[in-house]
């Protein structure tokens, strides 16, 4: 197969991505695959660690963006936001 490409295997009539099973935790909560994948890309420990750090960074940035939008909204509204007809 082509090096580095994700392989889709036909099983029960539906395409399956064997690498997806890596993301599912097993019964003990570990993120190791329950069984060895039939085919496809298997990430090394280093790649897995780096992917996780990238995911955490994206989460932090998105969280910070939410906080920024919230704070700027409050600043732009100003104290007059509470002065309105009931």
């Amino acid at each position, binding site marked *: *197969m*082509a*090096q*580095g*490409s994700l392989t889709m295997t036909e099983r029960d009539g539906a395409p399956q991505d064997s690498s997806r099973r890596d993301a599912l935790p097993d019964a003990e909560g570990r993120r190791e695959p329950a069984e060895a*994948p039939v*085919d*496809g*890309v*298997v*990430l*090394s420990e*280093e*790649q897995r660690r*780096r*992917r996780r*750090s*990238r995911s955490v*960074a994206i989460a932090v940035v998105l969280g910070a*963006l939410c906080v*920024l*939008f919230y*704070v*700027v909204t409050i*600043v*732009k509204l100003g104290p007059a936001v509470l002065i309105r007809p009931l």
Partner: protein
Amino acid sequence: MTDVASRDYAITAEERPLDGPSYASVSDYLALLKPRVMSLVVFTALVGILRAPGEVHPVIAFTALLCIAIGAGASGALNMWWDADIDAVMSRTKRRPIPAGRVTPGEALAFGMTLSVGSVLVLGLLVNELAAALLAFTIFFYVVIYTMWLKRSTPQNIVIGGAAGAFPPMVGWAAASGGIGLESVLLFLIIFFWTPPHFWALSLYKADDYARAGVPMLPVVSGPDETRRQILLYTLLLVPLAMSPYFLGMAGLAYGVVSGITGAMMLALAMKVYRLREGAAATKACKQLFGFSILYLFTLFAVLLVEALHVPSWLSGLGS
């Protein structure tokens, strides 16, 4: 199954499967933002924000600064995406994430485009449209006009392209005031005329690198002597221009004194570069000018920043 998983992390660009799992770490993505360039952009933009007339809420000022920083970083990522072939053959840049094989060009392009669009949109939505338009133009100028067009086609690349690096204080000024003032134009001109002596000093002792990469820098095309002459001419224009905020009453006595002293030192180093043309002494003079030029610009803007934050009455009285 592929053998990607069994590979050691130490890979070369040739071995790196372009469509395989990413090897990029967070620090590689941060490196794409050119943090050192970004820090100078943030600093000059902060001066623009603080010297602009009128009041700006600290949260809005912070947001503007963040967007300018991200926009500048996005430009850097797009520059590295386009120039990966050049970076790979230059000693100064061959360890960057793309030529080192840790980030694919596609990842860098997606990262740069996402941050470019995001920074402009957020600046427009949360601060003002003029600042967002100026930031968008800055990114366009740096990536398309400088990186894609001028850099590989003319020895005047960094003269015209220097405008991209000169815009941040103007963007900061526009973010804080909603307009473009004469002082912000002066700040733009100072960085604009500072860029050629700064980069040409570097390119004089890195000329072999630029020649090997096929970049038509002035020393490669016109020779080191012409480059030395142009460095001196631009420095002669730069020094009085850098002092003009004081003479026009826009800056205080402290700025006048500092810009005079550091300007004289800058001119002395440019003359030294012009005079010493061969051997280790010539290379040392170029390195001194390159290093001092950074300190020169930083000092000028630092004094403007301090004056904007607090100007003793006796200094401001003498300055106007």
